[in-house]
Protein backbone atom coordinates (compact mmCIF):
# COMPACT_ATOMS: atom_id res chain seq x y z
CA UNK A 1 0.00 0.00 0.00
CA UNK A 2 1.43 3.35 -0.94
CA UNK A 3 1.07 6.15 1.55
CA UNK A 4 -0.74 9.35 0.73
CA UNK A 5 1.36 12.44 1.14
CA UNK A 6 -0.07 15.36 3.02
CA UNK A 7 1.15 18.74 1.77
CA UNK A 8 3.26 20.86 4.11
CA UNK A 9 3.21 24.64 3.61
CA UNK A 10 5.71 27.05 4.99
CA UNK A 11 4.62 30.49 6.18
CA UNK A 12 7.42 32.52 7.70
CA UNK A 13 8.98 30.46 10.46
CA UNK A 14 6.05 28.07 10.68
CA UNK A 15 4.98 24.96 8.84
CA UNK A 16 1.26 24.52 8.20
CA UNK A 17 -0.22 21.06 7.78
CA UNK A 18 -3.91 20.61 7.18
CA UNK A 19 -5.08 17.01 7.21
CA UNK A 20 -8.09 16.73 4.91
CA UNK A 21 -8.32 12.96 4.70
CA UNK A 22 -8.81 10.16 7.17
CA UNK A 23 -5.35 9.20 8.35
CA UNK A 24 -4.13 5.65 8.00
CA UNK A 25 -0.98 4.30 9.60
CA UNK A 26 1.16 4.59 6.48
CA UNK A 27 0.10 8.16 5.80
CA UNK A 28 0.79 9.14 9.40
CA UNK A 29 4.27 7.67 9.26
CA UNK A 30 4.94 9.33 5.91
CA UNK A 31 3.84 12.65 7.43
CA UNK A 32 6.22 12.08 10.34
CA UNK A 33 9.07 11.53 7.88
CA UNK A 34 8.21 14.54 5.73
CA UNK A 35 7.72 16.86 8.69
CA UNK A 36 10.97 16.07 10.44
CA UNK A 37 12.74 16.45 7.11
CA UNK A 38 11.14 19.83 6.44
CA UNK A 39 11.76 21.15 9.96
CA UNK A 40 15.43 20.36 9.76
CA UNK A 41 15.73 21.79 6.23
CA UNK A 42 13.83 24.99 6.87
CA UNK A 43 14.69 25.61 10.50
CA UNK A 44 11.02 26.26 11.24
CA UNK A 45 10.16 27.15 14.84
CA UNK A 46 6.52 26.14 14.85
CA UNK A 47 4.25 23.52 13.32
CA UNK A 48 0.51 23.92 12.99
CA UNK A 49 -1.36 20.65 12.58
CA UNK A 50 -4.99 21.12 11.61
CA UNK A 51 -7.08 18.02 12.37
CA UNK A 52 -10.51 19.67 12.23
CA UNK A 53 -11.68 17.38 9.44
CA UNK A 54 -10.36 14.20 11.01
CA UNK A 55 -13.08 12.06 12.53
CA UNK A 56 -10.97 9.26 13.85
CA UNK A 57 -7.61 9.16 15.57
CA UNK A 58 -6.65 5.74 16.93
CA UNK A 59 -3.93 4.98 19.45
CA UNK A 60 -1.28 4.42 16.78
CA UNK A 61 -1.95 7.70 15.00
CA UNK A 62 -2.24 9.51 18.33
CA UNK A 63 1.13 8.18 19.34
CA UNK A 64 2.59 9.05 15.96
CA UNK A 65 1.43 12.65 16.40
CA UNK A 66 2.92 12.70 19.91
CA UNK A 67 6.19 11.25 18.62
CA UNK A 68 6.31 13.70 15.72
CA UNK A 69 5.90 16.59 18.16
CA UNK A 70 8.70 15.23 20.32
CA UNK A 71 10.95 14.83 17.27
CA UNK A 72 10.12 18.35 16.10
CA UNK A 73 10.96 19.68 19.53
CA UNK A 74 14.38 18.03 19.29
CA UNK A 75 14.81 19.89 16.02
CA UNK A 76 13.69 23.15 17.59
CA UNK A 77 10.02 23.43 16.63
CA UNK A 78 6.91 23.41 18.83
CA UNK A 79 3.77 21.67 17.55
CA UNK A 80 0.29 23.13 17.86
CA UNK A 81 -2.64 20.81 17.12
CA UNK A 82 -5.84 22.61 16.25
CA UNK A 83 -9.45 21.52 15.86
CA UNK A 84 -9.66 18.25 17.79
CA UNK A 85 -13.30 17.21 17.78
CA UNK A 86 -15.02 16.33 21.08
CA UNK A 87 -15.49 12.72 19.94
CA UNK A 88 -11.85 12.44 19.01
CA UNK A 89 -10.77 13.99 22.33
CA UNK A 90 -12.90 11.52 24.30
CA UNK A 91 -11.54 8.58 22.29
CA UNK A 92 -7.94 9.67 22.82
CA UNK A 93 -8.48 10.07 26.56
CA UNK A 94 -10.15 6.67 26.80
CA UNK A 95 -7.32 5.09 24.81
CA UNK A 96 -4.83 6.68 27.19
CA UNK A 97 -3.14 8.77 24.50
CA UNK A 98 -3.29 12.29 25.97
CA UNK A 99 -0.86 13.74 23.37
CA UNK A 100 1.62 14.98 25.93
CA UNK A 101 4.10 17.51 24.66
CA UNK A 102 1.69 18.82 22.07
CA UNK A 103 0.19 22.29 22.36
CA UNK A 104 -3.50 22.46 21.47
CA UNK A 105 -5.74 25.22 20.24
CA UNK A 106 -9.48 25.47 19.89
CA UNK A 107 -9.57 27.28 16.57
CA UNK A 108 -7.31 28.86 13.96
CA UNK A 109 -7.31 32.24 15.72
CA UNK A 110 -6.02 30.76 18.96
CA UNK A 111 -3.58 28.57 17.06
CA UNK A 112 -2.10 31.49 15.11
CA UNK A 113 -1.80 33.49 18.32
CA UNK A 114 -0.01 30.62 20.01
CA UNK A 115 2.24 30.08 17.00
CA UNK A 116 3.09 33.77 16.93
CA UNK A 117 4.15 33.71 20.56
CA UNK A 118 6.23 30.59 19.95
CA UNK A 119 8.01 31.81 16.84
CA UNK A 120 8.59 35.35 18.04
CA UNK A 121 10.09 34.32 21.38
CA UNK A 122 13.72 33.50 20.74
Amino acid at each position, binding site marked *: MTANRIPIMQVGASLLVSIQIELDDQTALQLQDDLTQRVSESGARGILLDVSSVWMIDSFIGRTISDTAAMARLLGAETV*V*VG*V*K*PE*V*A*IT*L*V*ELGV*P*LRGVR*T*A*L*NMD*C*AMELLESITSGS
Partner: protein
Amino acid sequence: MGLAEEVAERVRQHEERILKGWLDALRDSASFRQELTGEEELRESCEAILAQLVDALHAMEANATMEEAWRPLREQLVVLTQAWVELGFSPAELAGFITLLRQPLVEALDGGTTEHLLDMISLINRLLDRLSLWAAEIFQRSQSDIIRRQQEELMELSTPVIKVWNGIVALPLIGTLDSSRTQVVMESLLTRIVAEQARVAILDITGVPTVDTLVAQHLLKAVTAARLMGAECIICGIRPNIAQTMVHLGIGLDEVTTRATLADAIAVALDSMGLRMVGKEVDS
Protein backbone atom coordinates in the same frame (compact mmCIF):
# COMPACT_ATOMS: atom_id res chain seq x y z
CA MET B 1 -64.06 -31.45 20.80
CA GLY B 2 -60.92 -30.84 22.82
CA LEU B 3 -60.77 -29.58 26.33
CA ALA B 4 -59.72 -26.04 25.45
CA GLU B 5 -62.42 -25.77 22.79
CA GLU B 6 -64.98 -26.96 25.28
CA VAL B 7 -63.95 -24.42 27.88
CA ALA B 8 -63.99 -21.71 25.21
CA GLU B 9 -67.53 -22.73 24.24
CA ARG B 10 -68.73 -22.52 27.87
CA VAL B 11 -67.09 -19.15 28.37
CA ARG B 12 -68.75 -17.77 25.25
CA GLN B 13 -72.14 -19.16 26.25
CA HIS B 14 -72.01 -17.62 29.70
CA GLU B 15 -70.03 -14.52 28.78
CA GLU B 16 -72.57 -12.11 30.30
CA ARG B 17 -72.74 -14.03 33.55
CA ILE B 18 -68.98 -14.35 33.87
CA LEU B 19 -68.51 -10.68 33.14
CA LYS B 20 -71.09 -9.71 35.73
CA GLY B 21 -69.59 -12.07 38.31
CA TRP B 22 -66.13 -10.69 37.66
CA LEU B 23 -67.21 -7.04 37.88
CA ASP B 24 -69.18 -7.73 41.07
CA ALA B 25 -66.20 -9.47 42.60
CA LEU B 26 -63.99 -6.55 41.67
CA ARG B 27 -66.45 -4.08 43.16
CA ASP B 28 -66.77 -6.02 46.40
CA SER B 29 -63.10 -6.73 46.74
CA ALA B 30 -61.46 -4.64 49.45
CA SER B 31 -58.06 -4.95 47.83
CA PHE B 32 -59.05 -3.53 44.44
CA ARG B 33 -59.49 0.22 44.22
CA GLN B 34 -62.11 0.39 41.53
CA GLU B 35 -62.38 4.17 41.87
CA LEU B 36 -58.97 4.58 40.20
CA THR B 37 -60.51 3.66 36.87
CA GLY B 38 -63.99 4.46 35.61
CA GLU B 39 -66.71 1.81 35.81
CA GLU B 40 -67.30 1.93 32.07
CA GLU B 41 -63.60 1.59 31.27
CA LEU B 42 -63.23 -1.30 33.67
CA ARG B 43 -66.13 -3.04 31.98
CA GLU B 44 -64.59 -2.53 28.56
CA SER B 45 -61.22 -3.83 29.72
CA CYS B 46 -62.81 -6.92 31.25
CA GLU B 47 -64.85 -7.56 28.11
CA ALA B 48 -61.79 -7.26 25.91
CA ILE B 49 -59.78 -9.64 28.07
CA LEU B 50 -62.58 -12.20 28.12
CA ALA B 51 -62.95 -12.03 24.34
CA GLN B 52 -59.20 -12.46 23.91
CA LEU B 53 -59.28 -15.37 26.34
CA VAL B 54 -61.87 -17.15 24.21
CA ASP B 55 -59.81 -16.48 21.06
CA ALA B 56 -56.68 -17.78 22.77
CA LEU B 57 -58.49 -20.97 23.82
CA HIS B 58 -59.65 -21.51 20.24
CA ALA B 59 -56.15 -20.90 18.94
CA MET B 60 -54.77 -23.43 21.39
CA GLU B 61 -57.18 -26.00 20.05
CA ALA B 62 -56.12 -25.20 16.48
CA ASN B 63 -52.66 -26.50 17.30
CA ALA B 64 -50.96 -23.13 17.43
CA THR B 65 -47.98 -22.99 19.76
CA MET B 66 -48.65 -21.67 23.25
CA GLU B 67 -46.61 -18.54 22.60
CA GLU B 68 -48.44 -17.72 19.39
CA ALA B 69 -51.93 -18.47 20.71
CA TRP B 70 -51.53 -16.17 23.68
CA ARG B 71 -49.75 -13.28 22.04
CA PRO B 72 -52.89 -11.12 21.40
CA LEU B 73 -54.05 -11.59 24.98
CA ARG B 74 -50.60 -10.79 26.27
CA GLU B 75 -50.44 -7.61 24.22
CA GLN B 76 -53.86 -6.61 25.53
CA LEU B 77 -52.55 -7.16 29.03
CA VAL B 78 -49.45 -5.08 28.37
CA VAL B 79 -51.52 -2.09 27.27
CA LEU B 80 -53.89 -2.44 30.21
CA THR B 81 -51.14 -2.91 32.79
CA GLN B 82 -49.14 0.03 31.54
CA ALA B 83 -52.20 2.27 31.71
CA TRP B 84 -52.97 1.05 35.21
CA VAL B 85 -49.43 1.55 36.44
CA GLU B 86 -49.77 5.22 35.44
CA LEU B 87 -53.06 5.35 37.35
CA GLY B 88 -51.29 4.09 40.45
CA PHE B 89 -52.48 0.50 40.80
CA SER B 90 -50.29 -1.74 42.93
CA PRO B 91 -48.97 -5.12 41.73
CA ALA B 92 -51.20 -6.88 44.27
CA GLU B 93 -54.25 -5.21 42.72
CA LEU B 94 -53.18 -6.27 39.25
CA ALA B 95 -52.71 -9.87 40.37
CA GLY B 96 -56.01 -9.68 42.23
CA PHE B 97 -57.73 -8.42 39.10
CA ILE B 98 -56.80 -11.65 37.34
CA THR B 99 -57.47 -14.04 40.23
CA LEU B 100 -60.95 -12.63 40.79
CA LEU B 101 -61.84 -13.99 37.34
CA ARG B 102 -61.29 -17.53 38.60
CA GLN B 103 -64.50 -17.93 40.62
CA PRO B 104 -66.94 -16.70 37.91
CA LEU B 105 -65.17 -18.80 35.29
CA VAL B 106 -65.32 -21.97 37.35
CA GLU B 107 -68.98 -21.35 38.15
CA ALA B 108 -69.76 -21.14 34.44
CA LEU B 109 -68.52 -24.70 33.85
CA ASP B 110 -71.16 -27.39 33.96
CA GLY B 111 -72.00 -30.76 32.58
CA GLY B 112 -69.95 -33.87 32.19
CA THR B 113 -68.48 -36.12 34.80
CA THR B 114 -66.71 -34.87 37.88
CA GLU B 115 -63.40 -35.92 36.37
CA HIS B 116 -64.07 -33.95 33.22
CA LEU B 117 -65.00 -30.92 35.30
CA LEU B 118 -61.80 -31.24 37.30
CA ASP B 119 -59.82 -31.30 34.06
CA MET B 120 -61.47 -28.10 32.88
CA ILE B 121 -60.91 -26.40 36.23
CA SER B 122 -57.26 -27.32 36.25
CA LEU B 123 -56.91 -25.94 32.71
CA ILE B 124 -58.46 -22.66 33.82
CA ASN B 125 -56.22 -22.55 36.87
CA ARG B 126 -53.13 -22.99 34.75
CA LEU B 127 -54.18 -20.26 32.36
CA LEU B 128 -55.07 -17.76 35.07
CA ASP B 129 -51.82 -18.43 36.92
CA ARG B 130 -49.93 -17.69 33.75
CA LEU B 131 -51.92 -14.50 33.23
CA SER B 132 -51.19 -13.16 36.68
CA LEU B 133 -47.51 -13.99 36.27
CA TRP B 134 -47.53 -11.98 33.08
CA ALA B 135 -49.25 -9.09 34.79
CA ALA B 136 -46.60 -9.07 37.52
CA GLU B 137 -43.83 -9.24 34.95
CA ILE B 138 -45.26 -6.39 32.88
CA PHE B 139 -45.78 -4.33 36.00
CA GLN B 140 -42.16 -4.88 36.99
CA ARG B 141 -40.97 -3.94 33.52
CA SER B 142 -42.92 -0.69 33.37
CA GLN B 143 -41.60 0.23 36.81
CA SER B 144 -38.01 -0.29 35.73
CA ASP B 145 -38.71 1.67 32.54
CA ILE B 146 -39.83 4.60 34.66
CA ILE B 147 -36.75 4.35 36.87
CA ARG B 148 -34.44 4.21 33.86
CA ARG B 149 -36.10 7.25 32.30
CA GLN B 150 -35.78 9.18 35.52
CA GLN B 151 -32.13 8.24 35.81
CA GLU B 152 -31.50 9.57 32.32
CA GLU B 153 -33.35 12.78 33.08
CA LEU B 154 -31.42 13.18 36.30
CA MET B 155 -28.22 12.71 34.37
CA GLU B 156 -29.19 15.44 31.91
CA LEU B 157 -30.32 17.78 34.65
CA SER B 158 -27.22 17.32 36.70
CA THR B 159 -24.74 18.48 34.09
CA PRO B 160 -25.47 22.06 33.14
CA VAL B 161 -22.67 23.97 31.46
CA ILE B 162 -22.81 27.68 32.24
CA LYS B 163 -21.30 30.40 30.16
CA VAL B 164 -19.56 32.73 32.60
CA TRP B 165 -18.00 35.12 30.13
CA ASN B 166 -17.11 35.19 26.47
CA GLY B 167 -14.79 32.22 26.16
CA ILE B 168 -15.25 30.97 29.72
CA VAL B 169 -17.61 28.13 30.65
CA ALA B 170 -18.23 26.66 34.08
CA LEU B 171 -19.56 23.24 35.01
CA PRO B 172 -20.82 22.84 38.56
CA LEU B 173 -20.61 19.14 39.40
CA ILE B 174 -23.10 17.84 41.94
CA GLY B 175 -23.20 14.30 43.27
CA THR B 176 -20.92 11.34 42.95
CA LEU B 177 -18.89 11.00 39.79
CA ASP B 178 -18.98 7.50 38.37
CA SER B 179 -17.80 6.44 34.96
CA SER B 180 -21.15 6.74 33.17
CA ARG B 181 -21.70 10.20 34.62
CA THR B 182 -18.21 11.26 33.72
CA GLN B 183 -18.99 10.26 30.18
CA VAL B 184 -22.07 12.52 30.08
CA VAL B 185 -20.24 15.34 31.85
CA MET B 186 -17.33 15.09 29.46
CA GLU B 187 -19.55 15.05 26.40
CA SER B 188 -21.60 18.06 27.41
CA LEU B 189 -18.51 19.97 28.50
CA LEU B 190 -16.68 19.33 25.23
CA THR B 191 -19.71 20.14 23.11
CA ARG B 192 -20.17 23.41 24.92
CA ILE B 193 -16.48 24.26 24.61
CA VAL B 194 -16.88 23.99 20.86
CA ALA B 195 -20.20 25.83 20.80
CA GLU B 196 -18.97 28.71 22.93
CA GLN B 197 -15.43 28.59 21.54
CA ALA B 198 -14.38 28.62 25.17
CA ARG B 199 -10.70 28.80 25.97
CA VAL B 200 -11.16 28.22 29.67
CA ALA B 201 -13.40 25.66 31.36
CA ILE B 202 -13.99 25.73 35.11
CA LEU B 203 -14.97 22.50 36.87
CA ASP B 204 -16.57 23.31 40.21
CA ILE B 205 -16.62 20.25 42.48
CA THR B 206 -18.21 21.88 45.54
CA GLY B 207 -21.10 19.45 45.21
CA VAL B 208 -19.01 16.31 44.92
CA PRO B 209 -19.16 14.64 48.34
CA THR B 210 -15.97 12.59 48.13
CA VAL B 211 -12.97 12.55 45.87
CA ASP B 212 -11.18 9.23 45.78
CA THR B 213 -8.65 7.95 43.28
CA LEU B 214 -11.38 6.86 40.88
CA VAL B 215 -13.18 10.22 40.91
CA ALA B 216 -9.86 12.02 40.50
CA GLN B 217 -9.08 9.82 37.54
CA HIS B 218 -12.44 10.72 35.99
CA LEU B 219 -11.81 14.41 36.59
CA LEU B 220 -8.39 14.16 34.99
CA LYS B 221 -9.95 12.49 31.96
CA ALA B 222 -12.30 15.43 31.47
CA VAL B 223 -9.44 17.89 31.97
CA THR B 224 -7.23 16.05 29.48
CA ALA B 225 -10.00 15.85 26.89
CA ALA B 226 -10.64 19.58 27.21
CA ARG B 227 -6.94 20.26 26.90
CA LEU B 228 -6.78 18.16 23.74
CA MET B 229 -9.34 20.46 22.23
CA GLY B 230 -7.35 23.49 23.19
CA ALA B 231 -9.20 24.64 26.29
CA GLU B 232 -7.55 25.13 29.66
CA CYS B 233 -9.27 23.60 32.67
CA ILE B 234 -9.44 24.96 36.20
CA ILE B 235 -10.76 22.83 39.05
CA CYS B 236 -12.24 24.65 42.00
CA GLY B 237 -14.43 24.09 45.02
CA ILE B 238 -12.21 21.57 46.77
CA ARG B 239 -13.16 21.68 50.45
CA PRO B 240 -10.39 21.62 53.09
CA ASN B 241 -11.20 18.14 54.35
CA ILE B 242 -11.35 16.84 50.79
CA ALA B 243 -7.98 18.41 50.06
CA GLN B 244 -6.62 16.54 53.08
CA THR B 245 -8.02 13.21 51.94
CA MET B 246 -6.74 13.78 48.43
CA VAL B 247 -3.19 14.40 49.59
CA HIS B 248 -3.32 11.37 51.87
CA LEU B 249 -4.46 9.28 48.94
CA GLY B 250 -1.65 10.67 46.83
CA ILE B 251 -3.88 12.57 44.43
CA GLY B 252 -2.01 15.75 43.71
CA LEU B 253 -3.79 16.90 40.53
CA ASP B 254 -0.35 18.33 39.78
CA GLU B 255 -0.95 19.14 36.14
CA VAL B 256 -4.17 21.02 36.77
CA THR B 257 -4.71 24.56 37.98
CA THR B 258 -6.81 24.42 41.12
CA ARG B 259 -8.42 27.15 43.20
CA ALA B 260 -10.46 27.12 46.38
CA THR B 261 -13.54 28.93 45.17
CA LEU B 262 -15.38 29.60 41.94
CA ALA B 263 -14.66 33.33 42.32
CA ASP B 264 -10.91 32.66 42.41
CA ALA B 265 -11.21 30.37 39.42
CA ILE B 266 -13.07 33.01 37.43
CA ALA B 267 -10.36 35.53 38.32
CA VAL B 268 -7.71 33.13 37.01
CA ALA B 269 -9.72 32.49 33.86
CA LEU B 270 -10.15 36.21 33.16
CA ASP B 271 -6.48 36.79 33.83
CA SER B 272 -5.40 34.10 31.39
CA MET B 273 -7.54 35.76 28.74
CA GLY B 274 -5.95 39.11 29.45
CA LEU B 275 -9.04 40.52 31.17
CA ARG B 276 -9.39 42.12 34.56
CA MET B 277 -12.28 43.17 36.72
CA VAL B 278 -12.06 46.69 38.01
CA GLY B 279 -14.24 48.54 40.44
CA LYS B 280 -16.48 51.20 38.98
CA GLU B 281 -15.26 54.72 39.58
CA VAL B 282 -17.91 56.65 41.39
CA ASP B 283 -18.25 60.33 40.67
CA SER B 284 -19.01 62.23 43.80
